[in-house]
């Protein structure tokens, strides 16, 4: 069971860590607006890990879930097979809290936003792939956001080396596994989910690696949205 903690790393308070200049991620790709029924949709692929996301909203909300000054965000994570369990619920919570921090929910009070994530294939770094798919789908739905976010998973191997965007096999061999959500404006950590044992130094190194890797993902976001709007520039 993963251990969750929401934290914020101030830049001033950060230890000096040296991140290698070239962080390697697996091939990633994305398609927006591929489903016709939801208001926004996206599929995100990282290596062999693939997640599809659909967003509905701002729509009518159940009275029991109504919040008077902001929209209610619901995140549902559907595993590839079988019903959703505790693992999915904890990942849903991570995604929801990240989205809540990025979205301007107060613009749509007393309405509901529903984000549905369908796992198509899990080959490691699932949570980060979910976060990326979620961000692309929210953008596709045209919801107002204060910033974008991306997810990066880091694994610490038995010999202490850091692998960004690990595969399932690499995750299995790792001593510790951590996923961070990074925001696009200040490259700060919005959410962290960690598992296993590691030192403070290692945590800081992983944050630095993730921040480095996030640059690539954000550049990819920009290119992919630009491609989408190229038809009606």
């Amino acid at each position, binding site marked *: 069971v993963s251990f969750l903690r929401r934290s914020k790393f101030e830049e001033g308070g950060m230890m000096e860590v040296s991140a290698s200049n070239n962080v390697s991620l697996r091939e990633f790709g994305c398609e927006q607006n591929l489903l016709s029924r939801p208001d926004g949709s996206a599929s995100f692929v990282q290596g062999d890990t693939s997640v599809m996301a659909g967003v509905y*909203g701002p729509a009518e*909300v159940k009275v029991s879930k109504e919040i008077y000054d902001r929209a209610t965000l619901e995140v549902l994570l559907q595993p590839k097979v079988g019903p959703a369990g505790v693992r999915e619920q904890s990942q849903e919570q991570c995604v929801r809290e990240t989205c809540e921090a990025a979205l301007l929910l107060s613009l749509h009070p007393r309405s509901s936003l529903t984000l549905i994530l369908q796992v198509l294939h899990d080959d490691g770094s699932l949570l980060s792939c979910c976060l990326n798919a979620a961000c692309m789908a929210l953008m596709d739905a045209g919801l107002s956001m204060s*910033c*974008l976010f991306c997810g990066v998973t880091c694994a610490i191997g038995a010999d202490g080396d850091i692998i960004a965007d690990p595969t399932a096999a690499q995750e299995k061999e790792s001593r510790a596994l951590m996923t961070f959500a990074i925001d696009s*404006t200040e490259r700060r950590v919005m959410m962290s989910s960690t598992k296993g044992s590691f030192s403070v130094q290692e945590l800081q190194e992983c944050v630095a690696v993730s921040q480095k890797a996030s640059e690539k993902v954000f550049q990819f976001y920009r290119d992919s949205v630009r491609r989408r709007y190229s038809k009606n520039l």
Partner: protein
Amino acid sequence: LASGMFSSLKEKIGEVLLPGDEFVFESEDTIFLTDNVKPERPVCGPGLRQSGNRLVVSKSGVLRHKPPHTFWMDSQQWRYVPAKAETVIGIVTSKSGDIFKVDVGGSEQASLSYLAFEGATKRNRPNVQVGDLVFAQFTVANKDMEPELVCIDGSGRANGMGVFGGGGLLLKVSLGLVRRLLAPQSDIRSDLEQLFPCELVVGMNGRIWVRASTIQQTLIISNLLQSCDTLTAPQRREQFRKLQKGGL
């Protein structure tokens, strides 16, 4: 007086921006001694927010500009959020006493008073049934209140609004396409006019109602409109040309 911010904003007109992109005002260290000179500030439309001396993008899309100082983000979106004075196509879902509930595709149903029709009085009620289509305008639309529609303009005239929709077809397209159709010089509309005569009702909520002289032509137009979202201008013209050659 053109400040640095305006030039940096104007450089980006027509470019794709993402949420979180920001423009910073230059701090106003110049004090004008004459009262009539006001510092120029941009007017923010949808997708842009002003906070302090920063202007932040909150929706992904293309930055558009209308002289002198209006800027907004043109984004492709499917879900409608009511805005005051916009005209929409609604579906009447229920009648309860003095008001009709109308589905406009937003997060909440809009209310439409039975007195808000041309020539309607307490005795002379308009003939509106559940399931009817209405073309109406928002008089109240903000995030905190229930949206309200009317089918009359300021002088009590229908002005094209009211119940409609015999023998036509209602379709749903993206909000971006609707805006392109309603633009003063719309290239899609002029392409469409050359095809064959048809009646179009375009609501800002992404609903379009079409009627042509035959059902076949109605369907052709509705298919064309729905494909316009994913076609570039040359591809669209090619489609239209093919149809004209098809000997309809």
